[in-house]
């Protein structure tokens, strides 16, 4: 398998990563020396689509 960095080489420039969610992805890249900005994120309402819908409706009402 080709080095993953080859995928970005043709885009030019240095590989820098913003990682959302699973922190282990960021830790692995950091271990390879890749600059990573990790953003803590989880799906709204722990992935419950019903409550995510209610949150969205309440936010729409409140203009949040």
């Amino acid at each position, binding site marked *: 398998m080709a080095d993953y960095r080859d995928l970005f080489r043709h885009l030019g420039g240095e590989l820098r990563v913003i990682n959302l969610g699973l922190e282990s992805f960021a830790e692995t890249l950091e271990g390879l020396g890749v600059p990573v900005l990790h953003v803590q994120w*989880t799906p709204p309402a722990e992935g419950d689509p019903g*409550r995510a819908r209610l*949150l969205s409706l309440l936010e729409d009402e409140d203009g949040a």
Partner: protein
Amino acid sequence: MLVDCVPAREALGLAERTVLHSGPPLAWERACPPVQTAILCAIRYEGWAVDDAGAQRLVESGAVKLAPCHHSGAAGPMTGMVTASMPVFVLENRPRGNRAFATINEGLGKVLRFGANDESVVTRLRWLAAETGPLLGAALRAAGGLDLRALMAQALRMGDEMHQRNVAASSLFARALMPHLARTAPDTGAVARLAEFIGGNDQFFLNLAMAAAKASADPCLDVAGATMVATMARNGTDFGIRVAGLGPRWFTAPVNTPQGLYFPPYGAADANPDMGDSAIVETVGLGAFAMAAAPAVVGFVGAGGLRDALRITEEMGEITLGEHPHFRIPTLDDRGTPVGIDVRKVVETGITPLINTGIAGRKPGTGQIGAGVVRAPLACFEQALDALAHARGLA
């Protein structure tokens, strides 16, 4: 403003043969052993029964009623016992015109709030009612009341978070009260006993912080449509919240057991599930929410060091609506503590409120066995979100 200290029958209009407890409503059969033994002790203290067996018959027959402190304007630590003859502090939220009440903190060791119920507990309670309460009431009236918000803001700057650390607030309280106490007390022996009692209890101010928090939070229960949490409380069986836009309705789930550090020889297996109305201080942005202001307490509750304290306060900021205008944290460039828990933010992020707490022994009569932290159960907030959506016709 803290304005008085008078018997609960006078302050709350509390009926005889009624025992107030912490947390949401609780039937005798569902109460954990420390709460049950505290109820029996409170009945013996009032003289409604001569022994525990007689006291239990009164509760089981309905001759003695149980009710939450929060339904009578009071906030009670741990088991939360309040009965008619117990002296309670009277706090006024003058801009809003409401009052809140709390008993006098009994001190450490074998105390009613942790479910101890031997004769030493009853003897101390009777001294509090006969001597301490009247002394405190007279001194507070002579002082024209004490501004607790200013006192608490100062204590926060001195390293208290006012849940598991109240040493600065207790000291400031004593400093403010003592001149008035000396002028109004009938004899120096009584002053000395009370001064020794307050000076020997670093948690003396906890009950006052709770009543102040309740006086501040209660008016929010009338704000239609609001998604902010106005009450968090636990009774050793259930954790309950009340939400500003949903009035007096409780949303409950099984309470968690605290994680923390234990006094030798106790350990996690000896811990009772979490209890007490003291989570009202987290509700108004103190306690664990103000952890960054109280680095000394982080280790005491087994939650790490200063970096962890900063992280915890920052995390609570993820689920709150703003920063407290008066309770400011020096280590955060004087930013206010995170305040106003938003049901929507809790459900959206899955981050639940963290609470600093004392840990009671599971076995009745053991008392406090440690201190730690505990999370509010997510299910309370999920139920509240559903109810908010239903109330607005969205579900």
